């Protein structure tokens, strides 16, 4: 089977005169994609456009060559979506809720039963499946939301901040679940937790002000700032001076001193230590207001 292809073509969305997504083009083939971007960068808007929940101001989204609006039901059939914020029916139990979602997705009862059992297990809600959703904690609801998105075994899975509110253990579980699930599928997740995607994402897309500013694998992206990340241990008095001179990525306190992580083309000081570039460095580099341009 030839892999699916999801193409975004000069996609634009305005809200009044605010441009949330700006002439964005990209082509997705099966694999895990991570969307990175600051608050308000346009990630959610982009995902909604891909899910055909919002209609674009211009441009289009095509799935296997056809515009998704014209695919209609056929497209929604292969789509799974976890919205960033949404509600549940508080008086449904977790299981009933999933059955309801299954019937909304047109899954027959037998298949649904099996699938729901599996999914509840993988998001570790099996013990709570008979509980009403209103008794759930935030993280439990989030896991239920993830289960709901994966219910129909979608070929295109879109998860808007899936790990928000998950505890570390559940986060690892989620990563494992996703790495098994993502085979031969297009999975797009957005997140602010950089460490999450370092492990699971094949490709990373960085959005800023509605535009796609970088894309590539973690290595490709960090390559750009390779050999430019340094760590300096310095006193707080000298901090301002350094901040003016370099792009500061991070400041850590270590006793009396501050350990700062900076970007610099050459070795800034004698005691500076060269570090391996991480995705987080790149992220902070891209979104550093005071700092260097892109």
């Amino acid at each position, binding site marked *: 089977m030839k892999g699916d292809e999801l193409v975004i073509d000069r996609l634009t969305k305005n809200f009044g005169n605010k441009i949330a997504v700006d002439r964005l083009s990209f082509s997705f083939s099966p694999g895990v994609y991570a969307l990175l971007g600051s608050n308000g960068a346009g990630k959610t808007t982009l995902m*909604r456009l891909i899910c*055909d*929940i919002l209609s674009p101001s211009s441009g289009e989204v095509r799935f296997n060559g056809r515009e998704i609006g014209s695919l209609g*039901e056929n497209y929604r059939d292969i789509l*799974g979506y976890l919205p960033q914020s*949404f509600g*549940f*029916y508080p008086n449904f139990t977790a299981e009933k809720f999933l059955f309801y979602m299954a019937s*909304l997705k*047109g899954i027959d009862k037998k298949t649904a039963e099996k699938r729901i059992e599996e999914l509840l297990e993988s998001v570790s809600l099996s013990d709570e499946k008979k509980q009403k959703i209103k008794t759930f904690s935030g993280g439990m609801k989030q896991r239920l939301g993830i289960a709901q998105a994966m219910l129909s075994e979608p070929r295109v899975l879109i998860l808007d901040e899936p790990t928000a509110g998950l505890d570390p253990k559940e986060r690892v579980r989620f990563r494992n679940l996703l790495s098994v699930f993502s085979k031969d599928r297009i999975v797009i997740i957005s997140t602010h937790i950089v460490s999450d995607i370092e492990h699971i994402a094949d490709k990373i897309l960085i959005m800023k002000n509605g535009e796609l500013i970088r894309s590539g694998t973690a290595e490709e992206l960090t390559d750009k700032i390779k050999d430019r990340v340094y760590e300096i241990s310095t006193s707080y008095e000298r901090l301002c001076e350094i901040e003016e001179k370099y792009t500061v990525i991070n400041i850590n306190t270590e006793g009396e001193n501050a350990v700062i992580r900076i970007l610099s083309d050459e070795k800034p000081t004698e005691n500076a230590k060269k570090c391996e570039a991480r995705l987080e460095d790149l992220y902070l580099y891209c979104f550093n207001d005071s700092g260097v341009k892109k």
Partner: protein
Amino acid sequence: MISLISDENRKLLKNRIVQGILLLYCLLFIYFAVDIIFFTHRGYDKYDGEFAIFSGLEAIKWEKEQCMPFDGKVLDEDFLAEAEKRFGFQYDVCSCEIYSVYNCFIDRTPMGTVYDPVTGTATVGTVIEGFKKIEDVIPASSVPALYRYSGGYEVLCQKLSFVGILSVAASLIISALVFSGEYTAGTDVLLLTSKFGRSRLAVAKTLSGIIICTGVFLLFSLLTALLCFSFYGFSGADGDIRLSLMRNADEITTENLRFFGNAVTNAEFTGFIILVFFSAILIVSTSALLISALSHGSFSALSITFAVFSFPLAVRAIVHSYEYIVPYSATDSCFALFPVILIADWSKTLWWGISYNIAGENYPYAVIFPLIALVLSAVFVFLSIFAYGKRRLRCVGV
């Protein structure tokens, strides 16, 4: 599609507000049962069939000036003795008097007669008043009116008006929640990505709203009917409404009774009550559905619906403000405190009035108005589906 609708139904029935409304229905039903078993029309059964015989089925025919000759005989000796003692009438000659006195005797107050069961007083004067009223009500007619014992139908019609009022109010609230509830709960976004398009979902939701609203009404009407008939029997279906359901007919449209050129039977009348309520519920629920589809959330949907439905009522209230400022009775002033009841009452009376007035002599044409309601509802349904189908994410938080 059917599974979609049943899912929507299940979802609606899980809603706390809807459950609260269903609880109200149950309480009303319990009240009916208690009322019927312990309080309503004591003595009815005692006179059933033994009260009097009528020659053939015809009982009353307007011929003379002051009385309606009645070709029959009162059999009940207790009654005769009691009536003789109280009023000194010759009861086997005038059916009309018999009817009035009979009603007095068994603790009812139709047609202006007043009987106080505590002191046991009812004067001849009041009987005559009742008599006069019958004179007004039954025009000179060559068609004989049939007298029948019809306790079941009479009590049922009374109770149905309660069920109907509650149902109109309930359908207003339930329908207003159908779409708006999803916006408020934030679940709309989940529905958007479901396999079925928005329009199909809208169809399912609309139908489910209508099914629940009318279904609950029909169900409780049926239960009430079972309750009434099991206590008072089925008899009287073909009896003339002019001689039985007086209380009801009086309460609703005393005036309109004069339009009954043709005899309407108790069964027809009961059916018509159900039809009128049914169409009122259709209109109310479909228009509330439309408001719901257009709204931003439950709160706005509910308030707009209330505003829309209470507007004509407000006008009426202003026009007849004295009625509300100086209410007739304690119950009236109680009702005035609950806009929902007034709204429901308004829509009921409106349909009733229009249907009767315009149908006039041709009772069967009264069905036209429920038909108009049906057409209007279809328009509302179409508009709601269109509105919801076209609408994209507007209310879900960014």
